[in-house]
């Protein structure tokens, strides 16, 4: 009889790292499935195929990269002991299955938008897996979350390709371009919630809008997150402390800035920008988070604070990825701070945590007070060009800093039927300089089309629409449009414009209301004559 003398205990939990990772993979696959369905339904076949291909490319690249890293050692082992290794391909595959490169691949693919080229995806994945994971020693030894590292790498290197639904090489769809819902919102001022980019709160909740591949499906992610907590795949302390901190910050910003629709503001803040995806799939990565229960709470609070700090005060609205990277950095520090037993000096530790939280809240109050809360006011100058054509120059954000004023000055000619007091045509001479106005331009086209009785689905037939009704003589400088796209907007076949309200509910940004404001001032001018 052969007696085994491995150390006690002789019964072990049936749970295993592989099981945890496969459950995680299952959750991610559900999100992926939702993305595929969404892109096939809301986009077209190409969109859907890209949603599938992106993940496949990232996962395969991640696995191949890791296998290449395993290869030298495996060959050496094979030379020394052929029987132990057996089939070298199976051996490598087994190593890869226990190294979980595919998890990194799928998370990374879900963190990137569909519009990226295949070589960009491959390059990003190699950078994430090779630099951030394998060079540190492989699974279990990395300091940063490789998927988040990859996402930031892509944002820095291929940021111009982050078009969220724009697909390279397909001309008809190039018009649907622009930043995400969140950055759009951030650009317009945080209290403009009810009028951002054609997306309702319910859309945000179920994921009926474009963002990165996986982060938009809030409802699904919440359900998966709860299931993960129940199944002990993720630690609830991290997710909950992170989400609570974000919620608290959003509430503070809302309260300090006095937004009109408080509840909607908070919900939309929580549902946009991948906060939920980060809280469930990225921040909770056990390898890069602290081990002690209290440490996990501090980690979550810290990440939440950084997220909201970047969102409200930073240059880019998407702070989730950076905040996770920051939090990963302080993980060893948090772990080192916890000495002795976790049950020791519990009151002290709890009060320190409470203190940190209170401090962060106070700092939040200080910084969030600075967030712009003013409703933009418009200045306009109407001049009569001819009997029926009036020129109007609109300066939205007139109450903001001086340097903004010329930035968004709109110059347009409005042709009016004076007897019927309606608009016949609009010719936009200048949309104001600056990047990122391409989408506002589209917003104008769409909003106008609504009042022309030709309400269209987003993104479709815009070319035809703009050819028919609105003339833009001056191509928009630095906008995300190309000259090629703009050549379509040259026709002068207009129909009648009726008077449109100043504040356009749902779907108009402030810049768009700027156009509407200008048109209405012309109509007022004609009426006053």
């Amino acid at each position, binding site marked *: *009889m*052969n*007696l*085994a*003398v*491995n*150390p*006690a*205990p*002789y*019964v*072990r*939990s*049936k*749970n*295993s*790292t*592989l*099981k*945890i990772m496969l459950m995680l993979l299952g959750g991610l696959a559900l999100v992926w499935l939702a993305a595929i369905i969404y892109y096939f339904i809301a986009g077209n076949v190409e969109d859907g195929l890209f949603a599938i291909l992106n993940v496949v490319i990232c996962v395969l690249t991640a696995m191949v990269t890791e296998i290449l890293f395993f290869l030298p050692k495996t060959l050496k082992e094979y030379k020394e002991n052929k029987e132990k290794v057996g089939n070298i391909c199976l051996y490598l595959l087994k190593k890869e299955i*226990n190294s979980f490169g595919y998890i990194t691949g799928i998370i990374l693919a879900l963190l990137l938008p569909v519009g990226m080229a295949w070589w960009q995806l491959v390059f990003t994945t190699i950078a994430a897996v090779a630099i951030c994971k394998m060079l540190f020693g*492989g*699974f*279990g*030894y990395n300091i940063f979350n490789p998927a988040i590292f990859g996402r930031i790498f892509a944002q820095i290197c291929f940021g111009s390709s982050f078009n969220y639904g724009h697909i390279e090489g397909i001309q008809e769809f190039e018009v649907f371009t622009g930043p995400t819902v969140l950055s759009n919102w951030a650009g317009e001022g945080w209290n403009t919630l009810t009028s951002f980019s054609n997306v309702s709160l319910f859309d945000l909740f179920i994921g009926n809008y474009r963002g990165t591949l996986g982060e938009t499906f809030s409802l699904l992610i919440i359900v998966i997150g709860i299931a993960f907590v129940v199944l*002990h795949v993720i*630690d609830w*302390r991290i997710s909950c402390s992170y989400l609570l901190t974000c919620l608290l910050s959003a509430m503070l910003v809302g309260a300090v800035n006095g937004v009109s629709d408080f509840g909607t503001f908070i919900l939309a803040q929580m549902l946009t920008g991948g906060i939920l995806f980060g809280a469930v799939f990225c921040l909770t990565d*056990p*390898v890069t*988070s*602290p*081990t*002690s*229960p*209290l440490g*996990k*709470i501090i980690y979550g609070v810290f990440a939440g604070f950084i997220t909201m700090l970047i969102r409200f005060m930073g240059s880019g609205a998407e702070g989730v990825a950076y905040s996770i990277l920051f939090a990963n950095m302080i993980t060893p520090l948090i*772990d080192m701070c*916890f*000495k*002795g*037993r*976790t*049950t*020791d000096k*519990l009151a002290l*530790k*709890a009060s320190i*945590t409470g203190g940190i939280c209170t401090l962060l809240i106070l700092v939040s109050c200080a910084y969030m007070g600075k967030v712009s809360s003013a409703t933009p006011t418009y200045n306009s100058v109407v001049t009569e060009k001819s009997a029926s054509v009036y020129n109007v120059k609109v300066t939205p954000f007139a109450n903001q800093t001086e340097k903004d004023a010329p930035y968004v000055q709109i110059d347009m000619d409005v042709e009016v039927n004076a007897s019927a007091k309606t608009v016949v045509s609009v010719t936009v001479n200048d949309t104001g300089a600056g990047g990122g106005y391409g989408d506002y331009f589209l917003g104008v086209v769409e909003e106008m089309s609504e009042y022309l009785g030709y309400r269209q689905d987003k993104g479709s037939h815009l070319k035809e629409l703009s050819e028919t009704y609105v003339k833009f003589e001056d191509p928009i400088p630095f906008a995300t449009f190309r000259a090629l796209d703009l050549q379509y907007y040259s026709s002068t076949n207009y129909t009648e414009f009726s008077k449109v309200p100043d504040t356009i509910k749902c779907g108009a940004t402030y810049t768009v209301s700027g156009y509407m404001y200008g048109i209405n001032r012309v109509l007022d001018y004609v009426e006053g004559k």
Partner: protein
Amino acid sequence: MSIFTTLGHKHLYRIQDTKKLSMGKEVLKFEPNEVFVPVVDPGSSKPIQLNVSIGDLVKEGQVIGTCEKGTPVFAPVSGKIVREETMFHAGLGRNVRHFAIENDKKHQKVEPLEVLDLKASAEQIVERMKESGLSGQGGAGFPTYIKYLGALEKNIDTILINGVECEPFLTTDHEAMLLHKDELIHGIEFMMKAAGAKDAYIVYKKGYPDLDECYKDIESINPSIHVAHVKNVYPAGWERFIVKAVLKRTYDKLPAEAHTIVNNVTTAILLARAMNGEVETHKVITVSGSGVSNPSNVDVPIYTRAVDIVEFLGGYVGESVSVSFGGPMCSRGVMDDKAVILPYYNGLTILPRMTLNTLPCLRCGACTDHCPVGLQPVEIKDAYQAKDSDRMMALTPWHCIGCGLCSYICPSKIDVNDFVKKAKLMTSIKLKQLEAQKKEGKK
């Protein structure tokens, strides 16, 4: 408060199923042909003071020798001491001298000790605990009389009788509670007398209707003895867990600080027998696990070799097994199955060899989350592997109770508990040096 600290326990998978292997089965009786009495002190491993020599005839219950502190070693069977043999000792973990006694199976007993009843003074009861060699039957073998020395001055108000038996597979305490209710109550009465306690609680896990049925009338028999339940978790049988669960008290080093004494149910039963003059020569142990053909509870003389018991039950199953004295969670596997059953062992767990697919540490913190003493096993493991003694000292691994929950829970199947135990060994040496330095500094 498990938000900031740890859960401290775990519902082990199929803990009830593992117990079903031996629970409710008839207790088998086994008389081996030979027993092997280790002639060393189980505490200090020094040779004991021998009263007999090779070739002598001994009777059941005869004192063979006395340990350093005066605890006697009894012959479990009657027969002749045939030879001396060097064998593996499971408690000390190395080879020591044993006397082989050939069992004549005649059960010739020595004169029993004087029978003491409840009129006996506390001193007499403690003295009897000592002279009957009574040791804690929970598995650690701590001499019982030490707990009761000077107990009257320590203001003990409650005796807790531990029938929790949270280790998987073991069922001896459960069987003993069902079969020897009168002796148990009698033993508890003696314990209360010895400690001057007013109340006693028999503590066992929830979810045992047979025990509930058996002990529902306990307060009508003796109004000061009550029944208390603890959660069906591991390690619910740990002293601190019971004291906290039943009495809502905590303590630093010994339960006496919380005005209580914790004893195993079998200890109480043995005390009742000792007061009746009998000493412990036979005991019921659980031989269970999927590595043995016929798992059951067996009544054997103490100092029977494990291999003999397994053969009696039909032998091992499989080619490679791990044999551990006690439950599978705490006790260390032995490398030699010829080791003998010591008086304080309550089980023999035989399981097929584990094939563990060990992965790098995930740093998930599950071990920290489940440590009942609130240690951070993952951090201790890292510090041990990095040979960072300062960090190890900061993490206080000497608090480890060796419950094995950290290794059990580890999803990467790392032997975390082994690292913690090694760190505990390293730091306890350093701790002693530091304490010695402190003392010198004071002088």
